[in-house]
């Protein structure tokens, strides 16, 4: 056999190393997104009362002092803090899911990258429904993350197909 035949597996492994690289970047992306989501939302949960207090004070400046029902105000503040806690903990849980998916990328590449992508797009949509300003907030970073995850999903599909083919041949 010629030298060319020996080179063939090298060509295959080139493609595979490219895919492995994409999977590695998917792992990194998901772990970074997970850490950021978890950290930002835990911080938001920890400072919820202060955030609500500041927002209420801004609104109260527009209303004359005599027209404010203090009992109703306290009730509204409690509701706002509870809702903010709930939203923050829900998104923090999503951050944990991202971390878990990131660490499991090599075990189930397609499932983890597809779930990560779906969760990320869904999370963006949910935050947009809760607060419309979130659509445009950090949009470039969000698009970069989605593009990275789409590339990772592509690579994962190819990677998994190769693994399946290797199992069938072997």
């Amino acid at each position, binding site marked *: 056999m010629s030298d060319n035949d020996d080179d063939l597996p090298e060509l295959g492994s080139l493609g595979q190393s490219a895919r492995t690289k994409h999977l590695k970047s998917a792992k990194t992306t998901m772990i970074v997104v997970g850490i950021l989501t978890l950290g930002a939302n835990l911080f938001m949960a920890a400072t919820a009362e202060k955030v609500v207090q500041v927002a209420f004070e801004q609104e109260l400046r527009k209303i004359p002092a005599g027209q404010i029902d203090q009992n109703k105000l306290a009730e509204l503040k409690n*509701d706002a803090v*509870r*809702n903010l806690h*709930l939203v923050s903990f829900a998104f923090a849980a999503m951050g944990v899911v991202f971390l878990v998916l990131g660490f499991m990328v090599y075990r*189930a590449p*397609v*499932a983890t990258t*597809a*779930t990560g*992508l*779906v*969760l990320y*797009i*869904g*999370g963006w*949509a*949910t935050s*947009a*429904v*809760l607060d*419309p300003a979130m*659509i445009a907030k950090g949009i470039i970073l969000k698009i970069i993350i989605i593009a990275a995850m*789409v590339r990772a*999903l*592509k690579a994962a*599909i*190819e990677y*998994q*197909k190769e693994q399946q083919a290797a199992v069938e041949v072997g």
Partner: protein
Amino acid sequence: MDGLPGDREEFDAPEIVAGDLRAEVDGNEMPVADPVVEPCGRCRKPFSALDSKCPHCGAARRRAEPTSAERRQRSTRKGTARKVDATWGPWNTLLVGYTATLLTLVVWGLIVSRSSLLDVPDDMARLERISMADGVLSGIALTTFFGLRKQHAVEIHPPPRWWVVWPAATAAMAAAIGVNFAYHEAMESLGLRVIELVPEGTEHWWWWMASVCIQPAIFEELFFRGCCWRVMTPVMGVHTTILVSSVMFGMSHIGVPLSVPVLTLVGVVLGYARAYSGSIWLPAFLHFVHNLVVILW
């Protein structure tokens, strides 16, 4: 040296005159690839590229515009090149459909929250406006479904008996409905407001039922247990597909964000119903029953 088959010396090549499209070999006409022959830009008859004028019509040499047939052929070649990426194509269709669904829901949510679109006293007027959003979502589901019509889902073999699957799936859905109620009770006890899907005392009960029970049962199942199944099962297998499509199903209910976790669970039950029944009829029926129970309670 012995001539190898295919060597020029072995046969007498016919003399090809520049401008001839065909030459005769042993009495049979066969096409000859002649790079110097091009069709005339005016009369489209072939002539040599070495000539400055067409010998047939006398037109000056210029590149012929492609005919409509040639354009079609070129576009087909492009299409074929795109189809080379056959593995990613269906995923692309699915993700575009899913993103369009979420985008529709976000835009609809924004329109409703920023305008008095649903703030109308007439029940019928509200229903008409909600049905418009339903129509868009149904269109997206149908377009995605037909876009993936050439894909085939992987099924469980051998398929279990229907008289086992249908009662078992119905029991599982009853349990999921129980979990759904318990979850929403817990949310209400925490002081969170649970959205009423259907207004009390409505006169147009049938239309509400069509909008809340029938439309989702058909089109959501077509998308999440039809399209997702066709794209994901060949790559991921049945059980992982159930998991991922359930997450997609849960996240698509962003209009009721509190319900997303429990609806993901409902999606798992519907997914297993799809897997063991081998069609979307059972999950569509269970989805209808789930939504009906939720609006009746």
